[in-house]
């Protein structure tokens, strides 16, 4: 009898044959262990209860081969364009001709395959044990095709943003694209990382993992823009490590994509640190967006803040699972979670799970969650003042999203998000 190959084995074999990056040898046993012990999540897995991945698993995937991404194709996608460093990957392959790397006395920014700082990578890659977070994280971490490498040297404040652009899609077959990103900020460094995800064609499973290290007194801001194609699947797993007196801020904008699952796990392992997560998701049609955030307060006197907002239209579904875990030692923690959802259509669904797990007593933690629809009275009020119904709805939608928008510091990014929202809200009514 021939032994049947499980989907897990199939994905593993595929990933390994496509991998060009080797993780440090010292992690070999642990990775092996992590892969053996984790299975593909099902609806019975607590963290994946509201997210069905059967459609993702039904497909037969193959490895991508290098194909050149034309500048024209890229500009067609209307991505955020900022004056900064840029790395472009197409189905997991680095596109040197579209990129603007850096290697100077301030920072190193380039693809992992050409990484110039082997020592830092060897020392820290896998240190957050990201491979233990889920099977998909282990899959991506253990056998990536490539990825972004960012190293900011001590005391450097880099004003230019680092833009990582991930394009997927193939006209003929379903591809598996896997990237692992390594971000390391030295002491007192400051940087802004932008990750844009988009599709040229349909049918790719993009499985990304990312490790971020923020050393003492350093600050990192991260902005994510997700607008991938129908029939594509995206899973992003990110693990962030914060030392003493650090700041980390993440803004995630999910505008489009058949299936997006964002996992962010934050270890606040230093005193006096601050973390902020903003999210805005506006799924339409049959799209499914799922955000999972786990913030672990390990050391005292840290603050964390989560503010996620969603507007669900058509038959779309959204999931928010935010968890704050306060360890016994993490006294004087301030943690706040907020998740607000607007349902615009009868078939839209949302599942919200803000969770607090607290083992320290001198803390102030709270969360709030609301789900509702547009206020009919507010619309009527505006109509009675001569504002058309469409305009009234547009105004209310903008007002709903405004506090996320207001919190963006960079004018270029703000204008970009504003433009997309205008486009979307105009189209929705």
């Amino acid at each position: 009898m021939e032994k049947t190959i499980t989907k897990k084995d199939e994905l593993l074999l595929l990933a390994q044959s496509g991998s060009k990056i080797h993780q440090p040898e010292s992690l070999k046993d642990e990775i092996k262990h992590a892969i053996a012990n984790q299975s593909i999540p099902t609806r019975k897995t607590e963290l994946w209860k509201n997210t069905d991945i059967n459609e993702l698993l039904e497909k037969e995937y193959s490895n991508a081969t290098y194909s050149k991404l034309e500048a024209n194709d890229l500009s067609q996608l209307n991505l955020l364009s900022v004056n900064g460093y840029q790395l472009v990957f197409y189905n997991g392959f680095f596109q040197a001709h579209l990129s603007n790397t850096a290697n100077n006395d301030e920072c190193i920014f380039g693809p992992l395959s050409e990484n110039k700082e082997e020592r830092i990578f060897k020392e820290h890659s896998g240190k957050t044990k990201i491979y233990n977070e889920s099977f998909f994280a282990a899959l991506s971490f253990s056998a990536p095709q490539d990825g972004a490498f960012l190293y900011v040297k001590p005391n450097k404040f880099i004003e230019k943003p680092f833009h990582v652009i991930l394009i997927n899609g193939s006209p003929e077959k379903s591809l598996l694209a896997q990237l692992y990103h390594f971000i390391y900020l030295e002491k007192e460094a400051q940087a802004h990382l932008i990750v844009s995800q988009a599709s040229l064609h349909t049918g790719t499973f993009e499985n990304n993992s990312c490790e971020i290290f923020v050393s003492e007194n350093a600050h990192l801001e991260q902005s994510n823009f997700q607008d991938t194609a129908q029939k594509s699947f995206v899973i992003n797993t990110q693990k962030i490590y914060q030392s003493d007196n650090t700041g980390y801020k993440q803004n995630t904008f999910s505008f489009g994509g058949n299936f997006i699952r964002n996992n962010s796990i934050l270890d606040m392992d230093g005193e006096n640190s601050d973390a902020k997560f903003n999210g805005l998701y506006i799924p339409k049609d049959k799209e499914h967006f799922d955000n999972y955030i786990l913030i672990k307060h390990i050391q005292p006197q840290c603050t964390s803040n989560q503010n996620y907002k969603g507007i669900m239209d058509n038959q779309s579904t959204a999931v928010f699972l935010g968890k704050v875990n306060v360890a016994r030692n993490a006294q004087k923690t301030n943690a706040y979670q907020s998740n607000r959802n607007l349902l615009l259509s009868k078939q839209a669904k949302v599942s919200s799970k803000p969770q607090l797990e607290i083992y320290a007593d001198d803390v102030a933690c709270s969360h709030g969650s609301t789900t509702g629809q547009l206020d009919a009275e507010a619309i009527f009020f505006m109509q009675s003042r001569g504002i058309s119904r469409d305009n009234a709805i547009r105004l209310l939608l903008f007002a709903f999203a405004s506090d996320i928008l207001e919190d963006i510091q960079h004018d270029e990014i703000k204008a970009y998000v504003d433009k997309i929202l205008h486009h979307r809200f105009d189209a929705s009514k």
Partner: protein
Amino acid sequence: MKSDNDILIDELASKEYEAGFITNIESETFPKGLNEDVIRALSEKKGEPAFMTEYRLSAYKKWLEMEEPNWALLKYEKPDFQEISYYSAPKNLPKFNSLDEVDPELIETFNKLGIPLEEQKMLAGVAVDVVFDSASVHTTFRKELHKLGIIFCSISEAIREHPALVQQYLSSVVPVGDNFYAALNSAVFSDGSFAYIPKGVRCPVELSTYFRINQGNTGQFERTLIVADEGSYVSYLEGCTAPQRDENQLHAAVVEIVALKGAEVKYSTVQNWYPGDKEGKGGIYNFVTKRGLCKGDYSKISWTQVETGSAVTWKYPSTILKGDYSIAEFYSVAVTKNHQQADTGTKMIHLGKNTKSTIISKGISMGKSNNTYRGLVKINPKAENARNFSQCDSLLIGDKCGAHTFPYIDVDNPSATVEHEATTSKIAEDQIFYLNQRGLDTENAVSLIVNGFAKEVLNQLPMEFAVEAQKLLALSMEGSVG
């Protein structure tokens, strides 16, 4: 040096259980273990009709296929179900006509607990169905209730005398295979209470049952079924204390409530089972399935619970809002100290249009205990204009305890409005200072603040119960405020 506050916290957290004593009444007990023969013998012993025996056996078969749930945030030694005796009843069980004939030792037990049966009967006007271990010993006020057509008796009696009603409603809310403990309960439940309120009748007294777990090594499997027919109203009280025991005792009860069109059921619980000693040794395992069904339009079910006891609590009184315009409420105070663990909350399943639910949950953790709120609010696609408001507040006293909040909110209908908010904090020093300054010592200040914290819930309890609940809360807090 420990500050006054720390000493106080230690004292609060290590208060010994005050209602711990054992009553010596001879009882007939089955040998330990569970198999089909035990179930048949149990069913036969209780003189049940054939449908009940079948019901129990089918539940047992389902139970064998099920696994013990382990998703809750609880750590405990799994009970060995073959080490439990599944039937124990006081042996001398004559039918009493008056209280004088009741075993004096039993009366004394209740007196020690401050529940004078005769006083309650006369003064409070409460009909008390005393469940002592597993068999009903005494039922009062039966005749008065009978005049109104209200049936209030032990479930064994109901099975014998009103089999049609029982067959119609038993497991109509909690299916036999609903969960591991509900299946076990369905297979082996020994006794419990049954109440039926006929159409349009407003029950004039609060129906009340006092449970006591008495026999060492005896799992208690209570079964309660309350049916409120169209337009009726009933308030039902359940209160529990248990004597001190070293072995862990398992309690897996099932409570089912059916509210038909326009009916209202108010279900209140005060639970003070033995929580184990300071090291967390002994104590009751409380794995309870409580669920109500708002079956008809305009029906209402309201749960109020005060949880201060048990070593491990796994309890989620839930409501299915099936009828249009039905209302559900859940008010809860859970206090944990020493090594107690509580994973409790509610489920509100909105199926009908214009349904409304409210959840107010207050958790207080002390010592090395863990207190978890776990709740689900589900708005089904057809539940137009459903409304939910949830508020879960946690108070931490001492730095070794934990307070957790895990709400699940699933909304499948855009016309729904669902709100949830939760806070976790400790008693602020300035609050204590303010009260100190006004002449209250720290102990009284803490007690006052905790009472105020829980007031919103305690206010929901019926008068007779509210006093006892406040006393219990104060006892748990080692306070003098009541």
